[in-house]
């Protein structure tokens, strides 16, 4: 499970990393990394994002 950030929208504020309950998200200055082995698809970060840049990664 994972989320991804739309790089056209993301402003790299890192707010999503602050609300992730399982520490799956990391802000790396100009990108958001999501650890798919930790992410539980709870959707909190997606709801939080001030600019609506996050979405769930569809399964293959």
């Amino acid at each position, binding site marked *: 499970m994972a989320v991804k950030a739309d790089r056209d929208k993301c*402003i790299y504020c890192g707010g999503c*990393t*602050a609300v992730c*309950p399982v520490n799956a998200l990391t802000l*790396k200055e100009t990108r958001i990394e999501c650890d798919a082995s930790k992410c539980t698809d709870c959707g909190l970060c997606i*709801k*939080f994002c*001030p*600019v*609506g840049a996050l979405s769930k990664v569809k399964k293959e």
Partner: protein
Amino acid sequence: MRFEEEYDVVIVGAGPGGSIAAREFAKRGLSTLVIERRQEIGAPVRCGEGLGEVWMKKAELEYDPTWCLQEMRGAVLYAPNGKPVKIPTDNKGYVIERKMFEKKLAAQAIREGAQYLVKTQVYDVIKDEKGFVAGVKTKGGLLGARDFKAKLVIAADGVDSQTAKYAGINTFNPLSEVDSGYEYEMAGLKMDDPHMIHLYVGTEIAPRGYVWIFPKGKDTANVGIGIAGDNQQTAKHYLDKFIASHPEIFEKAGAYEEKGGCVPVGAPLEKPYADGLMIIGDAAHMVNPIHGGGMGTAMEAAVIAARIGAEAVSRGDVSEQALKPFADEWFKERGEQLKRVLKVRKFFEKLSDDDMNYLADVFINDTDLLLRFSDGDKFSSAVKLFAKHPKLALLAAKMLV
């Protein structure tokens, strides 16, 4: 630059809290290393950039024209119906240039002897055989993968603090206890009074939050919004709507920067310390939950933490018991007040637009009381003002005890 393998103090995060702590530790002769994830201290900004002079005094900071951009002499609060409530104050403040401010704070700390490492990520803490936090593991930056031992670690790494979590402390922020923030820095604004901050409230304008205009000059300002983190619509959605509906201010305005962030507006962390670790600032949720300001509280906590922490290090005892006086002093000085402010926030969160309009009408003749009330003080005098309003009186009786 030569870096040691071991320091008296390692501070994670070079925001206002981290750098003031670094300056204070270094001033006392402790070897101090500050580790910052960003490549540039001060940027990107995630802040409305308002700072009261009272906080500058607490942190022993003098007026500096390179970052104190515009003097503020009060606020104008706009009720949902648009009616302005002017709230002048003798406690002046500034809208600051945080990119410069944070660099100047780092420079002060460096001059006192602290060392800084930027673009360096802390990805874990080191624990000793007793289970005390005894350093950090880093990657990236100038030195690449390195371990730094420390007698004391300070987590000053902001709302998304990982350091405290690596040490096993739960600093998780539920969505209901954070604000989602978004902001433009703009020029070409038409403002009535560029020496007042302008605040707009209303359930349609900014659900459980507010829109702010913090002037940085006569036609430039931070125009931002903070709303409760669990709203369906984004913060950007509400801010763009606000700007579109106020052509009298924004018709000729344009944005030259976009900023955003997460503000912890729940209760402060009950136990901002552990064996070998102290947590300050946003990382310990030391933020005023009414306005979301956290620079002042972080710097105030940093001063206390450095004094208590330096004593603990020099005595060779950095156990929980030795660090607890930091929390005791901070809660007495600020934490208890912030808990009362949180009650006021929860009270305001329940209000409809009509309720807010009513309150604006009753407080307009005593704005000093409104200020004191929103600072967590004078509950009974404030409640008397709206005692005749059945819903508000009942709500106050329930929530403001």
